[in-house]
């Protein structure tokens, strides 16, 4: 029963991380930017839901309000900073988004204070297998909403004009431009969509866990790892890698102890990268 519990906990956690990672993969693929401020956008989204909760609105409404506000914040960040670094090399964009991350941390700390906060959903708990497996409904809700948003986005990317333009820009920005796609608009929209996804994830995190102005970095690192493992432009891969990492984390925690939880995930990342390199080198030999 414990393994079922750990497995379900990991899957629910992983789905939420996968949503954040999906935003990162999208913008990385389209704009070639690694967004270090990803986690801080998540936390900002969380604060929007938290303030709704403070004013007596159920924090679950945050999953609708937060992405709308975050979309416009994303566009503003793009117009102010990102559009100046989008064509530069990766290192410049990492530096720029690192700066945005520090700025956001300090601004959030200044505006919202340094207290750890959370929003109570009062969703209760689901008991399974004669109460041996316990799942907080807030986690189930988070996973459900994450999947819903991911599906909507996939459909939007396939069916809408902007979605097709985003995919075209990701494949070849220059060709897309020649064929009349306004890549500037596409980049702004992509960054906005990523910020909106972070907004959804943030609202869900404020319901499920806790938020604090300086808590963003772990979410950046996790989503970075998920994207690295899954590869760019591989949505099912992102979902699987998110859930896989979630389950792996829970089992590592249970078997090795909590102190080895994050370490084991990093070890797994190194192993995957080494394996990939090994596979790649064999491929090259074959091509010779």
């Amino acid at each position, binding site marked *: 029963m*414990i393994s079922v*519990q*750990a497995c379900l*906990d990991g899957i629910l*956690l992983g789905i939420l991380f996968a949503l954040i990672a999906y935003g990162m993969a999208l913008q990385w693929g389209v704009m070639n930017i690694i967004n270090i401020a990803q986690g801080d956008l998540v936390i900002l989204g969380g604060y929007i839901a938290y303030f709704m909760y403070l004013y007596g609105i159920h924090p679950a409404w945050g999953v609708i309000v937060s992405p709308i506000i975050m979309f416009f914040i994303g566009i503003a960040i793009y117009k102010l900073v990102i559009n100046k670094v989008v064509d530069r090399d990766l290192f410049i964009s990492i530096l720029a988004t690192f700066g945005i991350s520090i700025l956001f941390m*300090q601004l959030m*700390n*200044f505006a919202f*204070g*340094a*207290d*750890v*906060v*959370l929003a*109570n959903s009062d969703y209760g*708990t689901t*008991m399974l297998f004669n*109460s041996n497996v*316990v799942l*907080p409904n*807030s986690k189930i809700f988070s996973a459900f909403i994450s999947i819903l948003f991911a599906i909507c986005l996939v459909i939007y990317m396939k069916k809408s004009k902007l979605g097709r333009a985003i995919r075209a820009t990701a494949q070849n920005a220059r060709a897309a431009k020649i064929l009349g796609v306004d890549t500037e608009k596409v980049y702004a929209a992509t960054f906005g969509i990523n910020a909106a996804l972070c907004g959804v994830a943030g609202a869900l995190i404020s319901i499920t*866990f*806790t938020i*604090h*102005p*300086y*808590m963003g*970095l*772990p979410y950046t690192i996790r989503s970075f790892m998920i994207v690295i493992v899954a590869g760019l432009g591989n949505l099912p891969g992102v979902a699987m890698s998110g859930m896989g990492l979630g389950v792996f984390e*829970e089992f590592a*925690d*249970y078997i090795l*102890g*909590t*102190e080895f*939880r*994050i370490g084991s995930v990093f070890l797994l990342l190194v192993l995957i990268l080494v394996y990939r390199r090994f596979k790649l080198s064999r491929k090259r030999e074959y091509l010779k």
Partner: protein
Amino acid sequence: MKINKIIVSFISATVILLSTSVASFAKVVGDKIVLGAAISLTGKYSSNGVHTQNGYNMAVDRINSMGGVKVGGKTYKFDIIYYDDESNPKRAAQLAERLISQDGVQFMLGPYSSGLTKAIAPVTEKYGVPMVEANGASRSLFTKGYKYLFAVLAPANLYLDVAIDLAVEKNNGKGVTVAMAFEQDAFSQDVRLGVLDAIKRTGSKKVIDDKLPKELNDMAATLVKVKQMKPDVLVVSGHTKGALTAIRQISEMKVDVPMLAMTHCDAAKLSKQHGKNSQYALCASQWHKTLTYKDDFFKDGMTYDADFTKEFGYAPPYQAAESSAALLVFKDAFERANSFDQKKVRDALAATNMQTFYGNIKFAPGGQNVDKPMVLFQVMCDDGGKCENKVVAPTKWASAKLIHPIPSWSKR
């Protein structure tokens, strides 16, 4: 070109002159004793940094308005130079250097948190500047042989051992099984060492010993183990984040445990954030307003609580109370030393033996306060959902009877 050189030389000379003149006047200016403090006014510790500053300011105003400090037949008033350390240990150490070598401060008040105190202590020690601190509880601060460091609070290893004693007492003196979840930071690991000592002393047994990474706000896996092992006591220490996460996940996962003891519940405002779900949690605290310690300046805890609330608009957490107590200790030491000589003040501080509204204060050779026990309060809620913290241990200060074991979630 020549004129430029002259201007640069003139400005440099003026700057040097000004900085040296500040240094030569700063320790006691006219009728003012100037203390220095690096406080976290921004950054991750800014909430508690502000509590610390408010506590210092409250005591400065009170002491000054009640006659000040009498040294050598003359009356002096306290004044504090504050700098913002940005919750950064490196910055705190730089600011301590600046306070001492540029501003000429000869007496320091401590920053917030063990980590920042650890960064500042070597600097004050190097310059022989007495520092009374109120917010660094890590045991390692008091084992380094510092001669100029004095802490008015009980060290971290005493935070939760009283909970183990209480559980053993409730188990008719027999050992209990203990599950531990501690964050991987200096403070929480010191709390852990104290609990381990108590486990050994009482013949108890540890069944879970998890160390929570700092960046983690999920302890579901630990709680799954707790459900499986069914320990008599669950102890958690992970600052505010740990306390809030523990209550949220314990209530969501319906984890039944006879006793739950934590640190930092006061700062986490558990009952405000979690309502009745936080009921029955035991919280270690340095101070509680209902304790009956007394002094001439703040009278007692209840009066301090009322005065502080009136001035700052919120009830004082223990971080503010202990910060106020630090000023009372300095005043007492200056008057007994009857001098501003740093060595004499240091010796007077070492010989402190007094009672304040915050508790008794007497320093061990390592600098920690050995005369003030920790208290445990329990969150108790009425039927209307209004929750209060009531002191349940030590028995001498108890204002309510401990509810033990905690009723199971199915019966709540």
